[in-house]
């Protein structure tokens, strides 16, 4: 027994843990900076979520990713059920139905749907050979991912729906799909754009139009885009210091403790801070690829690549939208943005990765 604890500790992928806790702590400081003037208790709530997240991380790691993969379809069914439920009975905030309220907690099922889809797709693809019946597999996988995507899009939550796309593409790609299907997928996506356009709410359409032409909506979306750019840009090389970000604190940038948390970071810590943050995210993703290459379990490899692509995509779109490189969509910055569901879901997938690392030599 005395021996077991240190061994468990030795099996933990410490860089992963340290890095993500670092992200979350930075997030808490920045959430505080973004919201202290309004008197919200977001920072302390996020601290609680961090502890819950760590608990989830270790529990997941201890249980092992295999059991979760085996139960993947069950999770998938459950989250689809939640998504349907939220469409009909969910609480709407700012005109979007995304929440299930459980007492004082607000669950965002789209975060869990993302994780469940990752698990299911890894399971599904690993069980099928890319050498035969590729078309069939491709179609079934599309349905598997398309269903939750459409349900999330219907909420409407464009940002969370978009995340399904890179994880699907990356996993299919690594699984070994033929290039012609990728091209076909690209064409299909292109031709379904008009249809998708109509699913979007007017304010989402506006945000995308504004991305191409900022003069369209001077009081709404483009105002946000310009103000967030001013916030990031005014940080300069060294930033204004912690709690010194006037742009974000004075409410020029909306959603500054959630989706626009990066503009607080960039305003207060400047290009140096932003640079290090991006490099650290790159480091996180390279750890994920590293873990992936150390395992021989194909399911785990697919899972890891899906996770890496989802995180990379979220980081890119979230940071990109604050400087006009991507349209404004509600995507949280992993581990940093305020939000319990997102933080816990992220710690859960990292727990899966950590368990892949732990079990890498079992063969």
């Amino acid at each position, binding site marked *: 027994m005395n021996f077991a604890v240190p061994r468990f500790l030795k099996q933990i992928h410490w860089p992963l843990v340290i890095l993500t806790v670092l992200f979350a702590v930075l997030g808490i400081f920045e959430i505080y900076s973004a919201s202290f003037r309004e008197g919200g208790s977001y920072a302390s709530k996020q601290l609680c979520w961090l502890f819950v997240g760590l608990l989830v991380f270790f529990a997941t790691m201890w249980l092992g990713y295999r059991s979760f993969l085996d139960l993947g379809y069950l999770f998938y069914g459950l989250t689809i059920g939640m998504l349907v439920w939220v469409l009909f009975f969910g609480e709407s905030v700012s005109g979007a139905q995304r929440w299930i309220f459980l007492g004082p907690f607000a669950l965002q099922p789209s975060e869990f749907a993302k994780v469940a889809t990752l698990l299911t797709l890894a399971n599904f693809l690993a069980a099928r050979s890319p050498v035969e019946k590729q078309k069939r597999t491709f179609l079934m996988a599309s349905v598997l991912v398309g269903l939750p995507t459409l349900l999330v899009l219907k909420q409407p939550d464009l940002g969370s729906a978009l995340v399904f796309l890179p994880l699907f593409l990356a996993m299919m790609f690594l699984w070994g799909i033929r290039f012609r299907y990728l091209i076909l997928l690209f064409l299909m996506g292109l031709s379904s754009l008009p249809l998708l356009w109509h699913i979007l709410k007017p304010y989402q359409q*506006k945000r995308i139009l504004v991305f191409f032409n900022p003069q369209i909506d001077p009081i709404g979306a483009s105002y946000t885009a310009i103000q967030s750019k001013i916030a*990031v840009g005014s940080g*300069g*090389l060294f930033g204004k210091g912690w709690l010194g970000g006037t742009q974000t604190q004075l409410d020029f940038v909306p959603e500054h403790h959630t989706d626009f948390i990066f503009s607080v970071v960039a305003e207060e810590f400047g290009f140096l801070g932003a640079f290090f943050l991006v490099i650290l995210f790159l480091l996180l993703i390279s750890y994920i690829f590293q873990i992936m290459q150390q395992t021989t379990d194909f399911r785990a490899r697919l899972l890891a690549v899906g996770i890496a692509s989802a995180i990379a995509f979220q980081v890119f779109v979230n940071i990109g939208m604050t400087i006009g490189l991507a349209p404004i969509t509600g995507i949280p910055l992993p581990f940093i943005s305020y939000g319990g569901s997102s933080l816990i879901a992220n710690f859960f997938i990292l727990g899966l990765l950590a368990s892949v690392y732990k079990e890498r030599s079992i063969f």
Partner: protein
Amino acid sequence: MNFFKLRIPNVRLYLLQIGVLGTFLSLLVGLFHTQVIQGPYYRRASEQNRIRLIRLEAPRGNIYDRNGLVLATSRLAYHVYAIPEDFSPEDTPILSKLLGLHEKVIRERLSEARHASFTPILLKQDVPKELAMKIEERRPELNGVFIQIGFVRTYPYGDVSAHLVGYIGKISPEEYKNLDPTVYHYNARIGRAGIERAFDSYLRGEDGGRQLEVDARGVPIRLLGEKDPRPGNDLRLTIDVKLQSGMKDLLTKHKGAILVIDLKTGGMLAAFTKPSFDPNAFVAPGRSSERLSIIGSKERKLLDRSLNGLYPPGSIFKLVTAMAALEAKVITPHTTFDCPGYFRFGPKSRAFKCWFHEGHGRMDLYMALERSCNVYFYNVGRLLGERRLAEYARKLGFGSPVELELPTAGGLVPDAEWKKNVHRDNWYPGETITFAIGQSYLLVSPLQILRLVSAIATDGTIFSPVLVWEEFKNERKDLGISVKSDTFRTIRQGMLQAVSSNRGTAQLARVNFAKLAAKTGTAQAPPGEPHAWFGGFFPFQNPEIAFVVFVERGKSGGFAAAQVGKKLVSLYHELRSPSVS
């Protein structure tokens, strides 16, 4: 497992990793460009905070009556705003004097939004034009204070159509959270009642706005972007507001409701309800005490009695009983019963009285409708039974809301099953026969009676009633049940006799210019005096309108309601013939 390992194309993995690296590099380049190269520019922009956002309010659409008279419109008004960040506190005394606001109030308002100190704060609504000019002139002294043109809703006809047209109000913080923020801003107004509420999204326009760059004193120097507001759509109602105004003189003493429908189109000509209120109290600034007294009034002023009031119908319901009995072939128009002034199930059981204690004698259906004989309909009700009567009443639209653009009340049609569920008691035969004369548990709205009378007047091919003028959309609908036109003809004849016969209960409604058909009702509703009903259509041949008069606690349908009915038909006739007016 080794098979899988071999299968993973490493080239693909490299490609993926290169892709991730590429996107992150582009992020770094973008950040470098924004923060380092353009950094000084943005730093200046943020230090000066030179961009101001001014919302341009879109005027809400007008509401007209059928003749184009304005029922609701938006009046131009001047609002005084201040941007806390630009305002210097030493100007407070001057501003306080100008606006007639206490200095403390100004200071409080401005500090309310500490964390959003660049958002304009409303200081005073709807100031006189002269004051607005004065403030604009003194703008160089009063930093950060400006005049914004906005709109105040007004309802020229005041209480005449208050329930129908409704009113608007500021959204609550909870609503703001739940509504689309691009449509409803924090101070947005939203339809709170009536048409204003039901057609809110149609009437409301889309706000515009200006992005201004201002100098250090808050004076605009450059327009960065502008979007014009899109005004809301106008709406035309089927209501004739002149007719409805005239009703104020018809219903003087009592509470009540009057409904008139145009039978040729289904458009409601009038939906008058009393007591009413002045909707302007809900939209004009500084009338909140009046508003509160309306909301808290014991008379329930906000209740639209014409659409949502529920009352026992009394004898006017005999029309339904007669139709049901004819259709069920329980009686023919010539079936006779004797009325000795009371009715008994057996020799020893309790006597149910007729309103005419001396007794009507032997009569057929026409006479029974003409004189509203209770005993005749007790007999009919006994033959028909409560189940069939309830079934017909429901088919004729009672017990469920009438389809309309506004919410309407459903009412209650009782039967044995209902009584068992609700009262845990058996249904008694005595209840069947009182049900047949429109008493017992029955509850109806004036609008439901209007629908019934319209169906009788048009052989059952009625329009569903509408309030909004859409000649292209409204189509004649079948009643949903097949009632023989002979049945309708019989009922109409009975209603004609009720007015034209010298022994008819509705004879006080007789007019000298045309024939009128109607039925009265006197509904017992203890405690207090009975309610008075009067419903009919006009003229008898080729009817144009159907109407219902309801007088709350009016004592007698034959007196109170029928007299109002006569004046109503005369008023309608007068307004229709241009020579008189």
